[in-house]
């Protein structure tokens, strides 16, 4: 479970303090999947850094499974738009990287089995000995997802993970993501620019206002199934899409007005 309680955060810049987050509150239930959408530059990535404990909020608190986040912790998995695979390792070794950091009692064989299990789930079994440079962008991102889940984190943070992929590959990865969600158990927060992505993947979508970002609007997606793309073309999905686009429009106009 992820809880943001009245979090405010500032960056120091040349022109003094810049407020990024303003009294932001939201929560993701255990094993839930929420999406955060909002105008670009509104502080979405700051949210991920705060959850990961890479930054401390100025005000308010962030609670993961009942414990306040003070510093980085090993029960978290992260994936970014840039898959940042290590070019000198093969895919299997790349996926196993977190197990070299996080304290665990797994034998080497168990580690390899775990990595292979995930690679099979995302369809990369044949590529475990390949170097990242031999893989396409979508495949690299799949490997990056495996790496973020290898140590069975309770919380998964995805920061625009599919933003740099072409539309078809992206849809493929949405299905992969849902397959992972079925087999693995984690609470997930995805930051995205893509409203369709947020509707397809998440149970709840939170719209952030322009900077300083606060929780402007949130809506439950209430989907029936997760395993095909048709659900994006139902009347229900169109309605969600329109509501969210309208909300993001409001957020952007507010930001323009503030400037």
């Amino acid at each position, binding site marked *: 479970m992820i809880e943001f309680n009245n979090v405010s955060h500032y960056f120091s810049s040349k022109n003094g303090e810049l407020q990024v987050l303003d009294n932001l509150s939201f929560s993701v239930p255990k094993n839930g999947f929420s999406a955060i959408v909002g105008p670009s530059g509104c502080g979405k990535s700051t949210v991920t*850094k705060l959850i*990961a*404990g*890479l930054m401390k909020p100025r005000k308010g608190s962030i609670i993961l499974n009942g414990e306040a986040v003070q*510093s*980085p*912790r*090993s029960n*978290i998995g*992260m994936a*970014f738009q*840039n898959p*940042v695979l*290590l*070019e*000198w390792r093969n895919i299997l070794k790349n996926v196993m*990287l*977190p197990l*070299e*950091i*996080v304290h665990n009692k797994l034998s080497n064989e168990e580690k390899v089995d775990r990595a292979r299990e995930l690679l099979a789930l995302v369809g990369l079994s044949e590529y475990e000995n390949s*170097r990242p*440079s*031999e893989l396409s962008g979508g495949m690299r991102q799949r490997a990056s997802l495996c*790496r973020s889940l290898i*140590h069975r984190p309770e919380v998964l943070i995805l920061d625009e993970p599919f933003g740099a992929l072409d539309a078809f590959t992206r849809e493929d990865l949405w299905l992969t993501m849902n397959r992972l969600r079925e087999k693995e158990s984690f609470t997930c927060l995805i930051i995205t620019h893509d409203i369709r992505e947020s509707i397809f993947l998440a149970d709840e979508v939170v719209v952030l206002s322009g900077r300083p970002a606060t929780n402007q609007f949130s809506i439950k997606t209430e989907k029936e199934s997760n395993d095909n793309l048709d659900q994006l073309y139902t009347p229900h999905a169109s309605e969600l899409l329109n509501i969210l686009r309208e909300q993001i429009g409001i957020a952007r106009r507010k930001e323009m007005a503030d400037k």
Partner: protein
Amino acid sequence: MRRIAVPILTIILFLLFWEWLVWFNDWPNYKMASPSDLGPAFWKYKTLFFSFGWDTLWRTVAGLLISIVVGVALGMVMGFSKLLQEGLYPLLIGFNAIPKATIVPILSLIFIGQHDFNTVLIAFLISFFPIAVSVSIGLSTLEPEYRDILRALGASKLKIFWKIALPKTLPEFFGALKVAVTLAFIGTNLMEIVSPHGRGLGALFDSGKTNSDYPLMFAVLIALAVLGIVLYYCVVVLERIFAGWADQLSR
């Protein structure tokens, strides 16, 4: 076949032209050597070639090893701390701007008679700069996400350095090492030539010069070329082993 035959043929043609030039002009050995003089020169001084060649080799390698230690340390310091980078960079650039040939007489006078020491010292001084710069640039341009994936798991700075920053910098490091090995070799020879009563191939070259013994001087040049090529390819082999993955990236 063609890859081997063409270069060998070119070399043979070059040597024939050289031989012809000396024969045509009727230059005596105190004016110019011809390729056919080189064999006898090597044979005549063969013990000196081996012992002095060894001197030149180990001094170059010793200087280079110190360069690697100091260069990597400086690079790490500058790569990790913006403040120290701002402080040290201008100093290093200023130092690097001085033609090292001018430092040779200074060192040979300060440490007069200590041939091994001042030769290794100049080999080091001339070659650490590219290593320091490449390591510092490699570290400071590391994308923050690379750090974040480990930092978010609570990895220590040292662990991030060993697992990510260091291997990621290796291609740049070896690029610099190829430059550094050539520079260190130049440094060693400069000092050996300038130091009075020195040892090493540079000293042998100098004695050839003093006696107008052109066959000896050219024989030394050939020996230096061979040694330089061997040193360079040693670095290339190490690069293939430790940073071969970067080769595939550029393809």
